[in-house]
């Protein structure tokens, strides 16, 4: 499962959006990235990409968690 690239999404995403994310990651990492796309409403919004053992988290859930950590410290 760790070796599989997954894109988790929540909210409104069109196929073009997903393609933009895919090409963005391909450009950033310098190779062609293919995703298994999963809808996960627990993210609330945004996406998180699991690529090659790393998480690229751009979801609302991650923001909220991070905000909670910073504000309660």
């Amino acid at each position, binding site marked *: *499962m*760790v070796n599989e690239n997954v894109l988790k999404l929540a909210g409104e995403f069109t196929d073009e959006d997903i393609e933009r994310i895919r090409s963005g990651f391909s450009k950033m990492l310098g190779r062609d990235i293919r995703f298994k796309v999963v809808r996960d409403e627990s993210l609330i919004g945004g996406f998180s990409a*699991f690529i090659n*053992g*790393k*998480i*690229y*988290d*751009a979801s609302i859930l*991650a*923001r909220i968690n*991070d*905000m909670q950590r*910073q*504000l309660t410290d």
Partner: protein
Amino acid sequence: MIGSDVKSVASFLNSRINEYEYKPKVCEYGVVRSCTDDIVQIDGLSTISYGELISFDGDAYGLALEMSENGVGAVLLGKSSKVVPGCIVRGTGRVANICVGSELLGRIVDPIGRPLDGLPLKVDKYRPIENHAPTIMQRSPVNSPMQTGLLAIDSMIPLGRGQRELIVGDRQTGKTAIALAAMINQKKDDVICVYCAIGQKASTVAQVVHTLTTEGAMDNTVIVSSTADDCASMQYLAPYAACAIAEEFMYNGKDVLIVYDDLTKHAIAYRSMSLLLRRPSGREAYPGDVFYLHSRLLERSAKLSEKLGGGSMTALPIVETMAGDISAYIPTNVISITDGQIYLESELFNAGIRPALNVGLSVSRVGRSAQNSAMKDVSGSLRLELAQYRDTAVFAQFGADIDASTAHLLARGERLTELLKQRQNDVMSLSEQVAVLLAYDKDMFINIPKKSVTAVKKQMLEYLEQNCSSTMHAIDMSGKLSESDRNVINNAISDFFARTK
């Protein structure tokens, strides 16, 4: 009034929220493969380091303790039912930390720094739980005394600041009571105490807190507690966390007394973790590194050099034996690490000799040089006398005719045994201890019936407090017994015994 408070709180929160800035993070992740008995096997996380804190989806945290080609083995900190196979795990890039600082005084926290006494805790300083022990050059020899307030210990097995002295004995022999007395006695010496409960019953910890509170010693004490219902990983972390809290005080030039109660339970918690991590087991099924487990903990106690502020950490680890067997694995390990041991015996305890100290088997390897000179002057031959008495008493049991000198030796020994008895939590100051030993040395108690020795001792100390309190206080302050002080006290003692006749 209330309205303006609400406004200021709201504006504070608003400013905090406005300051907040989100930076998207890229971090490594792994996936939980299996989770049994708080041990989690994880795929991925290939660049994690040993002892790193990992976070699971939800609020759970874990500690990475095993790296292999098949993934990472970790222990869960705290209970969580949310960790299931398929869960995402992230490395946090930091080792386990604990909050430290003087805000912790008078508080009860768990091994990861969460307050357990229901009050808010505001601390902004943290230290890693695992830390290197001070190096040779950072230390100085143990040279100042650590008074426990127990006459038997301060006179015959003296402790120094920075020493590690093991308290070993069967269950119900008063091990915790000795540590508690030592903690209570520190309140006047400005020594900070850290009490670490490892795998104890919650009721026992509550009792300790109650005792410290009623004796007024809680204000300079920090309690780190992991009770028997906490998972093994929390019990494993507890002494290291407590040590980190104590280290912070030590490196700030303070003197600290730390009690680990007890390391047997710590070793058992570590054993269960190691067995579940499938590490090879050795003697008594403990893993191979169980010696290192305790040596790296106790090495962190030290007397620091003047350059580093001269702080100290005195450790009183407690180890429980089974049926008096001090040659079991954990007791021998810890005995060889520490600078001496206080051995308590259940037979003595049941015979009413409390503290139930076995003087023959108890030693202090460094404390003698740190003893107060006042105590050194009066306690020189005490050990020898007590040993002679114990030997002779065995023979005297046969009822053989005994000559006058032997009878005298026995009478003195009996009185000494009585004088060394002390009620629980009843601590004696240095001057009181010195006075009792002076009176004993002058054979003042020899004509007092054995049963009333304790009462007479009490009266004598009250008499001294009334009649020469300034001399007594001078001894407490200086730790020295000058010739004139000695005369004053000797005269007062003679007066007192002349009156009681």
